């Protein structure tokens, strides 16, 4: 087993929790790079703000290494998140973790934020940066076998597939990063991509293609997943020839894209056809006072550095709005 080290993911002093009786200048929703960057810019503008999130890091925590964040040729994803969090915590703003936001409503010219556990917080402005979740593979067998051969988290589950046969569904950066994690446990990998060719960065593709226990099947569709107690085989179709074959496998890792976590603002902000929040170049939504940033928005290229930049932009825009509307 690769020694994982000891991760101390706790603040030195417990941050005070947001107060349900206060009208904050700014409420920031989310715990990924967009939200964390927004906190830094808002705190430096001395805004009375609070952060509400399920956890810190978002989907970054499911990655092993980051190789495209400015200033770091290669950094462990957990280290990068820890650095982000440490920076955020240094401003000592109120933080509520473990909280899923259910809905954001407009109320008397301000915003009311409701959590799944029934808490309510008020803000003059909101930055919605709730990120994205995994797109589920919706085919026969895909629900029954989650946790029994189907995985959406390689850093969690790769150890259970040491030297086993696995399929990776997807052809982008996440799929190739998943391949790198599975190469470490010497898995026999088949990569299956619905589209033609592969969409991952060239450097990632180069690294993965050097592995000798991997085959690549692009322009293929996964039709169903079969097994009794756990995954035993997967039926795939060649989209060029229409030929169907069954492949015996022990597991399937699904990296077929992401879906925006825009549910809390679906009745408030304008979304595009795939549910992303539509924003302008200053991160404004169609609702004055509601800003959005990061992977939940319709901005292309879901990257940490882009989210961090947009989070900063959203905080500065919220500050401008508060000044222009004489709310502070």
């Amino acid at each position: 087993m690769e020694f994982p080290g000891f991760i101390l993911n706790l603040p030195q002093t417990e941050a005070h929790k947001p107060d349900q009786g206060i009208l904050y200048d700014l409420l920031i929703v989310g715990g990924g790079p967009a939200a964390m960057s927004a906190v830094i810019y808002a705190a430096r503008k001395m805004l009375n703000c609070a952060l509400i999130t399920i956890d810190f890091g978002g989907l970054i925590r499911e990655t092993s290494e980051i190789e495209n964040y400015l200033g770091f040729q290669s950094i462990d994803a957990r280290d990068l998140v820890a650095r982000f969090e440490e920076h955020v915590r240094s401003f000592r703003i109120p933080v509520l973790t473990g909280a899923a936001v259910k809905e954001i409503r407009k109320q008397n010219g301000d915003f009311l934020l409701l959590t799944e556990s029934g808490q309510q917080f008020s803000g003059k402005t909101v930055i919605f940066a709730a990120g994205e979740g995994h797109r589920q593979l919706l085919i026969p067998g895909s629900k029954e076998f989650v946790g029994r051969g189907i995985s959406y988290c390689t850093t969690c589950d790769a150890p259970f597939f040491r030297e086993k046969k696995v399929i990776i569904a997807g052809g982008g950066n996440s799929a190739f990063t998943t391949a790198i994690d599975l190469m470490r446990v010497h898995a026999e990998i088949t990569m299956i991509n619905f589209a033609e060719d592969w969409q991952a960065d060239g450097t990632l593709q180069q690294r993965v293609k050097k592995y000798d226990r991997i085959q690549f099947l692009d322009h293929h569709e996964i039709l169903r997943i079969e097994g009794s107690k756990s995954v035993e085989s997967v039926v795939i179709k060649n989209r060029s020839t229409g030929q169907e074959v069954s492949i015996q496998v022990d597991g399937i890792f699904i990296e077929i894209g992401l879906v925006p976590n825009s549910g809390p603002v679906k009745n408030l902000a304008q979304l595009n056809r795939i549910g992303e929040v539509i924003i302008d170049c200053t991160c404004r939504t169609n609702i004055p006072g509601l800003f959005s940033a990061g992977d939940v928005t319709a901005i292309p290229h879901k990257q940490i550095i882009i989210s961090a930049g947009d989070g900063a932009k959203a905080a500065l825009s919220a500050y401008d709005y508060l000044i222009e509307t004489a709310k502070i």
Partner: protein
Amino acid sequence: MGTIADKDRERLKTIFEALIHPVHIIMFTQEFECEFCRMTRELLEEVTGLAEKISLEIFDFVNDKDQAQKYRIDKIPAILLIGDRDYGIRFFGMPGGYEFTTLIQDFLMVSRRDHGLPHEVVSTLSGIENPVHIQVMISPGCPYCAQAVHMAHRFAMAVSAITADMVETTEFPYLATKYNVQGVPKIIINEKHSVVGSMPEKEFAQEILKALQKS
């Protein structure tokens, strides 16, 4: 050089200033220590040395059989956290990776003598009389497992009929095989009911109730 990084040692000193009541840690290892037993013991010796309110007692799994039976320890390394009583909080395997954070969170929780679960959630389980044994199977690289383990430990502290174990699957592969673990966190309740994934308090309580219906 210690087991934990210098920077984390300094942070822990500050974190431990929030300790209120004493926390007693019991660890089971053995004379000829396995690699992870030694690492776990060294980790605990170092961490408990940072706070006066935390004490550490080490038992030998073989020579202190009566203690192992008393605390229902069947594998090592094992860690128990005792406050004003034995809450049934157990770690089987080294709390490495994200589980180190869980260990420290548990120290703080036990020291506060407060599990922090809402009353309405605990009240749904108040009628439980038969023992409930929760095992949270984890892997150290899993970012969601720490939350599931701490949640299980909160329920163990809140309800006396509940005991909750963290089980590190790479150290106990036979248990991963026994319970067909292919995804973590896998939460196994009373051997009969299992669910994969971390979840909020209310849902966790519902899973416990579902397991009791199967018993």
